[in-house]
């Protein structure tokens, strides 16, 4: 038994030291939130008229985009003429802009023709198609799509009602798509996910009900499936293709294999890698902003919480921690010191994880997060107290201190697990179901709770069991904050009971 305890102890201490060293070596530092250290603020102005509702929608979509992990805690708000996005701690302003992301509309365009072009084509200014738009109009020269020097339609000519020539996203081979007018926009998309089906990565697409949704989509599907002039079959193929276009680039252009689809049963396959499938589904999900936004300015902003407040908070936290330490050691003596060591272990591990996630995934540590940790300290101490009080209880009931140690731990730990499970369930649900600050909180709560369980099981328990095997423990229970045990022929000095 003691051997196992020893292994646990050495293991957890080694892990903690390793994690701390890694953190220092990798120069991981927690990413402080906007409130604590400021960041970059990007102001986006709407192009064309935009009402409040559209801007609110844009805010939601940008939040999803910027906050892929959901814990970076950006501040996104509607202004009178657009949207303001503030990101914590981004030094590189270019990066901030790219994070805020593309603002173009997602469009569904039928593919008229696919070809390879090395930029040798003639420039064309383009002519508007006569309704109804048909690819034949392009083939016969009735309509000429506007193209720039690279044989591609320039962004300023990329209008939804025009024929355009666009390239494939992330594909430098010069594949060109001659596309018809946009038939549907990203507003039709309700959800999209990368799925692993039939041994390959595919993208599952879910549309809304109604005309801007499945009905509109099925109308196009009918055109493309049978290869009507509006959506012709490429040479030798059985079905026409529908291109999904974002930001002047074709994201993917699958051929339409059925004349009609169910709203929630549309699969796009295309020999995707997982990353590609993720990318496509991301573009489908968040691609469409209801309003086009243009960056107006990018500026550095300072922390929202004054430095004075911050300093006050830090000083208060340190003093508080010190007082807690004094209280715990005063009350539980050596057990209290073990509790503090256990706290230090879970604290160091938590710090390493936060620093790692802050550097790698943009997890921001805000005032709320700091508070969450302060309270987590309270809960961590609590776990120790649950055990210690149980120990005392058993000793008072007449057990020897040593047998109490063995008996009380499993019981106390089961209580701790029950109570911590409730927190974990809460953290998990909040993580899955919310966005923004609440999500950040859920992460901190979950991490702190798990670490509490780990430190209690692998450090605090074994440590006390090891201590309990010493002669010292049996002879001086009062030094451990325990009442003198009646079952042990105690030395005279320890008959005095603490608190009496």
């Amino acid at each position, binding site marked *: 038994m003691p051997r196992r305890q020893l292994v646990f102890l050495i293991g957890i201490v080694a892990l903690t030291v390793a994690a701390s060293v890694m953190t220092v070596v990798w120069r991981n530092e927690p990413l402080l939130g906007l409130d604590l250290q400021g960041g970059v603020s990007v102001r986006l102005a709407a192009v064309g008229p935009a009402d409040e509702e559209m801007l609110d929608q844009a805010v939601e979509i940008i939040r999803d985009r910027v906050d892929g992990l959901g814990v970076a805690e950006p501040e996104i708000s509607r*202004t009178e003429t657009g949207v303001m996005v503030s990101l914590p701690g981004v030094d590189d302003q270019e990066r901030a802009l790219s994070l805020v992301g593309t603002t173009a509309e997602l469009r569904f365009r039928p593919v008229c023709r696919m070809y390879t072009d090395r930029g040798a084509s003639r420039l064309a200014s383009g002519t508007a198609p006569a309704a109804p738009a048909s690819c034949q109009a392009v083939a016969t020269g009735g309509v000429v799509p506007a193209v720039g020097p690279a044989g591609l339609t320039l962004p300023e000519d990329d209008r939804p009602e025009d024929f355009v020539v666009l390239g494939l996203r992330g594909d430098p081979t010069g594949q060109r798509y001659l596309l018809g007018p946009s038939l549907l926009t990203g507003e039709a998309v309700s959800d999209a996910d990368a799925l692993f089906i039939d041994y390959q990565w595919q993208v599952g697409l879910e549309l809304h009900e109604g005309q801007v949704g499945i009905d509109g989509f099925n109308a196009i599907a009918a055109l493309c499936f049978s290869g009507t002039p509006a959506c012709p079959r490429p040479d030798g193929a059985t079905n026409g293709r529908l291109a999904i276009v974002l930001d002047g680039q074709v994201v993917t252009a699958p051929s339409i294999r059925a004349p009609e689809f169910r709203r929630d049963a549309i699969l796009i396959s295309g020999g995707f890698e997982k990353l590609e499938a993720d990318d496509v589904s991301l573009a489908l999900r968040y691609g469409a902003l209801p309003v086009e936004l243009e960056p107006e300015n990018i500026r550095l902003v*300072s922390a929202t919480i004054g*430095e004075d407040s911050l300093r006050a908070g830090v000083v208060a936290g340190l003093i508080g921690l010190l007082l807690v330490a004094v*209280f715990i050691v005063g009350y539980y003596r050596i057990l209290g010191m073990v509790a503090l060591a256990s706290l230090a272990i879970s604290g160091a591990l938590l710090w390493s994880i936060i620093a790692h996630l802050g550097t790698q995934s943009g997890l921001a540590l805000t005032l709320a997060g700091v508070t969450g940790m*302060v309270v987590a300290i309270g809960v961590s101490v*609590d776990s120790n107290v649950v055990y210690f009080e149980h120990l005392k209880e058993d000793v008072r*009931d007449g057990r020897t201190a040593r047998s109490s140690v063995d008996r009380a731990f499993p019981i106390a730990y089961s209580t701790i697990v029950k109570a911590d499970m409730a927190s974990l369930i809460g953290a998990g649900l909040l993580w899955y179901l919310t966005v923004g600050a609440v999500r950040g909180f859920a992460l901190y709560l979950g991490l702190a709770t798990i670490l509490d369980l780990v430190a209690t099981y692998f450090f605090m328990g074994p440590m006390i069991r090891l201590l309990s095997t010493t002669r010292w423990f049996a002879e001086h229970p009062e030094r451990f904050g325990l009442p003198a045990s009646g*079952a042990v022929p105690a030395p005279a000095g320890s008959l005095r009971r603490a608190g009496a």
Partner: protein
Amino acid sequence: MSTLGGLYRGESAVDFPRLWRRALIASTVAVLIGLASFGVRGLNLGLDFEGGTSFEVRAPGTSVADARRVMERLDAADARIQIVDGELLLIRSDVEDPARAAEIRDVLVAELGPVEAFEQVGPTWGDEVTDKAVRALLVFFVVVALYIAMRLEWKMAVGAMVAVAHDIVLSVGVYSVLQFEITPATVIAFLTIMGYSLYDTIVVYDKVREIVGRLGATERYTYTELMNLSLNRVAMRSINTSVTSAIPVVSLLLIGSLVMGAATLQEFAVALLVGIFVGSYSSLFLASALVASLKEREERWRLVADKVSARGLADGPTRVIGRQEAAVSDSRAAPLRSPTGGPAKRRPTIAPTTAGGAPPRPRKKKKR
């Protein structure tokens, strides 16, 4: 002090069931006040929830603290002030009324410098965020209730949920009554309080289950009496935990009030402090009372209560279960300690009459 000393020594010193009624009245009144205030005065939602007005002032060299002093004089101390690109002051306040915003602008121009931009801003914490959070909370309540019902029992799930709801209403009530500004951090504080209260309640319930498992079969004590014993045994833990959690928060409160401009921190600290104490209180007085009253209705415990009252022992204060009985299951495992040396032990108010029921079977000693 003797009560606290008794608690420290783990002796049954407090008659919790006698306090339950009073606690129930106090809690009901507090909850009603909270709800009434919530209904009448509502909450003081901050910039993040309602939007407001932003001012950009060109005032190089002006510190945030200076700007805050000006805003305080304008009765808008909770404005958020940032320095932009080192020379502009970005001041965002939850003032929505255009006339008042114009007033503020004029004062800013007079005291700080030219106001370059001045516009309404929307909330950063939009309705969708709130909707999602509320939905998540509802799911959370259901799932945690199921979890408690599974691991403990459903009556305890009811008790825990009522206690948590009580704590949330009281904490939100404090914000409503004092009209503190609600920020995202406040919402986080409420969530923290919830988790905290739940933890506390589950510890109490787990204890009572353990004690009922040990002493319930003797049929000598009613559920309420067993609950009282459990509460006395966890009370010290509850107090200790509250103290250790409250110390950093109190320190935040005191130091925050010494430093100017930390108003947000202070209000935040007040919310947490209230939550911490209410969380402990509700598990000792509400969650336990509720479960006890639900359990007393069960046939098993009704019979026990009848038996006990037939012996004429149910009147007066809740009987206290002495240490000797409490340790009954261990009677063989470890010799009971004689009271020599310790303070006079409270004698059990009931002598274990062995006339009727068989003596409790000692449990098997646990393997070491």
